[in-house]
């Protein structure tokens, strides 16, 4: 079996995997990082979204061996020093979840949006979340959460200047 090595949430990890092992299986079963969910396993729902080299991807539609040498960030990698990431905080404060199953994917997808566009419109948030399905919320509070996080992150960036 090939050995795969990558950096996950800042730590170098390696493991033996079958080439057919999906990235999401390696993360969940190999590394025990079960924050990344599997909703559909058919590339539709976005519950499995993680970042690979700074781009959001569906970890159920990528092989672990394709991430050889890559920098991977999962939902577990967002909270720094015990305090929630502004996106996590905003989902908490705005009731952006009900059962929470879609939330890790919603947050990891939204993170790329806010990295590219710190001040998105509501329409841009909705369009960006095209690949993330939620069975509970009706999306309104998810969109509200992302907009609130964007405002908080812009505020923090200004304060740092």
């Amino acid at each position, binding site marked *: 079996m*090939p050995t795969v090595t990558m950096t996950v949430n800042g730590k170098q990890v390696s493991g033996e995997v*079958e*080439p*057919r092992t*999906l990235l999401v299986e390696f993360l969940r079963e190999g590394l025990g990082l079960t924050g990344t969910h599997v909703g559909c*396993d*058919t*590339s*539709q729902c*976005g519950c499995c*979204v993680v970042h690979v080299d700074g*781009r*959001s*991807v*569906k970890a159920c*539609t*990528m*092989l672990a*061996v*394709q991430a*050889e040498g890559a920098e991977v960030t999962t939902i577990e990698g967002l909270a720094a020093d015990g305090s929630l990431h502004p996106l996590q905080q905003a989902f908490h404060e705005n009731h952006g979840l009900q059962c929470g199953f879609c939330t890790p994917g919603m947050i990891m*997808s939204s993170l*790329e*949006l806010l990295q590219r566009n710190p001040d998105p419109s509501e329409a841009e948030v909705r369009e*960006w979340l*095209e*690949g*993330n399905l939620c069975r509970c919320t009706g999306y309104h509070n998810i969109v509200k959460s992302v907009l609130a996080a964007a405002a908080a992150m812009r505020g923090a960036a200004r304060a740092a200047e």
Partner: protein
Amino acid sequence: MYNFTYHRPRTLAEVAQLLSANEDAKLLAGGQTFIPTLKQRLAQPSDLVDLSGIAELKGIREEGGGLTIGATTTHAEVAGSELVRRLLPALADLAESIGDPQVRNLGTLGGSISNNDPAADYPAGLVGLGATVRTSKREIGAEDFFTGMFETALEEDEIVTAVHFPKPEKAAYAKFPNPASRYAIVGVFVARTGGGVRVAVTGAAPCVFRATELENALAADFSPAALDGVSVPADGLNEDIHASAEYRAHLVKVMAKRAVAAAG
């Protein structure tokens, strides 16, 4: 998924060698079509040859006033490219309309056209612009490249390396997406070029095609109103749970008018 051996070669010569040494080897690009196919056990390759490590297949450059885009360039890279926005904004819009951000981050131009899904967007862009597909063996005009449903002119072991798009005078793409999958129920790419008007339709039939009745009307008068009296025949168009053939025929005209209006 059946198991396979995975390779990530660095050069096209190595790819050729891996393909000739392993009869059941298959190429992997963004995996956004092929990994779901493997999961369903609809394919059983002995070897997967990942094209992502080959530098010469990547990138976007200006060539002869038009654009040349490498096969492994992702939809997100095309949508986000300043160069594509400047020279061929209709193509950037087309790439931006594909699937969702995560699919666009991995899915590639070469993978999309090699797969030739009847509802894929790029085939309309290539045929609409009169693009040329470059492969490891030859150059193929877009209309000769797409030969049927999920069928292309590619031979066994032939690899798409790039696509060259000439610059049109005006162009636009209008798509009526399936609300769930975002694939085109109907997508129409309209271009006015030095050689005439081209209207390419995807999603409506088993394979991309040129709507000659619309092209003729637009050649005389490049305006949405020029299409008012023209009707598109429903014969041979796709019929499924999403749309009837008649509805698709209707959408072809509506999308063509929108594309002409957007092209300005």
